[in-house]
């Protein structure tokens, strides 16, 4: 069924179709309409789930952590400072290996207060052990939310589905809603191998020593470091799981095909713009313009940011002359996080393209297509002019 609705409603519809059992959320702009929609679905009886209106984001993720530990499929959503207020729990959820799904409706971080879009919130949580997927339109939001539960439950690692505040959350676009029976066939019921159960008691997340230790039956149990190593190796395995889940989704629902990177005009491109989220759509117009000028350009929207598909990036872009990374976040005092990751991925190649970094759109600063065209053109035609330092687009000093 095709409908025209907001990105937040697309996300809520995905959560409903995934038959989520426990939802907890605390309101924050621009996430609010998503949780309002979910509470409406639960309150009206259209969705059979527990909706828990908690008193903070820290508690929202606490509810999800506990409900997931007790064996239920769980969901929450937040933005910006709400995400940061959860930060301790974000690490906890990953360490406890709980397949929670959370939408991060991307927004800039205070101070000073801003409610508008950039990516600093989710990027600042990239090292927590969560899988991060970025959606670039409404269709991707609903499809990615449904896929996220499958990915999370396959590898027992929580997933953030990130999408741009206002630009996607509050705009209306047509998208297709999958049939419930097709989603049911794609996403089996959540059946964890262990959960909080008085018939089979276990003390979960207890203090773990630096070294390995024998249990009461004489079996060697891992230490903290082994447990953390397992999280990392399962994160690396997740790259292929994301591809497999995408294939399965294509078979069941009929959409997909770009699980790691959403590419536009990249096949013969000399210069490729790289970005996260909805910016890739705006950059498609830029590419069309520059191609008319004779510049062979393309766009690569990174969909899977953590784990980082570094080997795919190194091989896919081995023949490009330049990669131009457009970012709505910054590792202050260094460079854009995505820029550093892209350079690191390319380091394994003998012939490396040049890589440029543009910082733009912080705190919702308007991103003008003409500014993108000029920056991208300069990077293509006059690339030696631009060094390793991030270049700022739209800055009015």
């Amino acid at each position: 069924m095709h409908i025209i609705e907001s990105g937040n409603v697309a996300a809520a519809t995905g959560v409903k179709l995934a038959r989520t059992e426990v939802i907890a959320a605390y309101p924050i702009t621009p996430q609010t309409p998503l949780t309002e929609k979910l509470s409406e679905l639960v309150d009206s009886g259209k969705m059979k789930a527990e909706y828990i209106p908690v008193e903070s984001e820290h508690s929202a993720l606490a509810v999800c952590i506990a409900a997931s530990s007790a064996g239920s499929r769980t969901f929450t959503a937040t933005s910006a400072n709400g995400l940061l207020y959860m930060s301790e729990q974000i690490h906890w959820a990953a360490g406890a290996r709980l397949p929670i799904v959370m939408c991060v409706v991307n927004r800039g971080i205070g101070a000073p207060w801003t409610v508008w879009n950039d990516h600093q919130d989710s990027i600042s949580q990239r090292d927590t052990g969560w899988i991060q997927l970025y959606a670039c339109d409404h269709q991707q939001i609903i499809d990615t939310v449904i896929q996220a539960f499958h990915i999370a439950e396959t590898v027992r690692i929580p997933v953030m589905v990130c999408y741009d505040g206002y630009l996607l959350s509050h705009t209306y676009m047509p998208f297709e809603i999958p049939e419930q029976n097709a989603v049911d066939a794609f996403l089996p019921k959540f059946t964890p191998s262990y959960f909080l159960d008085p018939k089979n008691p276990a003390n979960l997340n207890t203090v773990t020593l630096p070294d390995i230790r024998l249990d009461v039956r004489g079996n060697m149990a891992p230490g903290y470091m082994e447990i953390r190593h397992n999280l990392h190796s399962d994160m690396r395995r997740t790259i292929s799981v994301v591809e497999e889940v995408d294939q399965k989704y294509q078979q069941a629902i009929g959409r997909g095909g770009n699980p790691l990177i959403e590419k536009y005009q990249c096949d013969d491109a000399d210069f490729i713009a790289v970005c996260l989220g909805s910016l890739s759509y705006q950059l498609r117009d830029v590419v069309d313009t520059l191609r008319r000028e004779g510049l062979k350009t393309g766009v690569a929207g990174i969909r899977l940011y953590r784990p980082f598909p570094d080997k795919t990036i190194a091989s896919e872009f081995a023949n490009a002359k330049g990669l131009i990374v457009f970012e709505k976040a910054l590792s202050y005092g260094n460079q854009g996080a995505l820029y550093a990751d892209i350079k690191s991925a390319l380091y394994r190649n003998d012939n490396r393209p040049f890589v440029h970094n543009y910082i733009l759109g912080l705190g919702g600063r308007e991103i003008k297509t003409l500014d993108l065209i000029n920056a991208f053109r300069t990077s293509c035609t006059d690339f030696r002019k631009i060094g390793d330092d991030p270049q700022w687009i739209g800055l009015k000093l």
Partner: protein
Amino acid sequence: MSEKTTILTLPEEELVHPGNRACAGCGLSIIYRIGLKALGRDTILVVPPSCLTVLQGLYPIASTQLPCLNVTFASTAAAATGVLGALRAQGREKTTVAAWAGDGGTSDIGIQALSGACERGENFIFICYDNEAYMNTGVQRSGTTPQGVITTTTPIRGKLQKKKEVPAIIAAHGIDYVATASAAYPLDLYDKIKKAKTISGPKYLHVHCPCPAGWGFDPRYTVKIGKLAVETGLYDIYEIEKGKFQLTGPSQKLDNKKRKPVSDYFKTQSRFRALSKERIQEIQQSIDEKWEGYQKN
């Protein structure tokens, strides 16, 4: 409860393995053993960082026989909410959910989540064991440390502020059952937990818990000191049931004649060494006034 539990009628089945990591004379180890008997096997525990985290054992060895979720410091009552949500979603509502936190985890960092859960009316039992400081981290002051007490963060003059009255704060949420108890009277606690299990909605139990290492007394006097706190009228045992306050157990039997002077209690513990005679006199006066108030009502 119609019939009071005695040592003869207490269930024999132990839900705590012998050989746990509690210190000698730990008040918590008494109430944990008795408390788990009252909660029973069909219970899920939620525990934030505290002495109980250590008592329950280091991975992969556990001293508890109940399923337990260890959670972050501030999130205890919210995590209990999450367990309840999952149990409802799965039709496992008969299982008891008990959150068990220390005084810091309850009165300071955990109070927001606890307040939220009480306001939402979550059907769980919250047990605060109050040893009146951050004992697990090495005796730092908490919101429930009494005035005048020496801790590692009130090292010279003692704590300048009053003890936070957490049961009164929780009672202000309008929940149906708030009660206090003491590690010195474990059977009273047993009966109160059993009673809490029959009431739906949030139940709050605040348990005074002497700590030899943190309070500065010989481990053999844990029960004696716990009783002295009650017998001097410093720590009161009561229930607030549907808003109705009533002294219970040992505090109910106490009157102005039987009440011992507060100095009897203070002199047993080195943590009170900064209290001057004048200060003790002032505290005695405020305790006398509190008890005059009780006896008028």
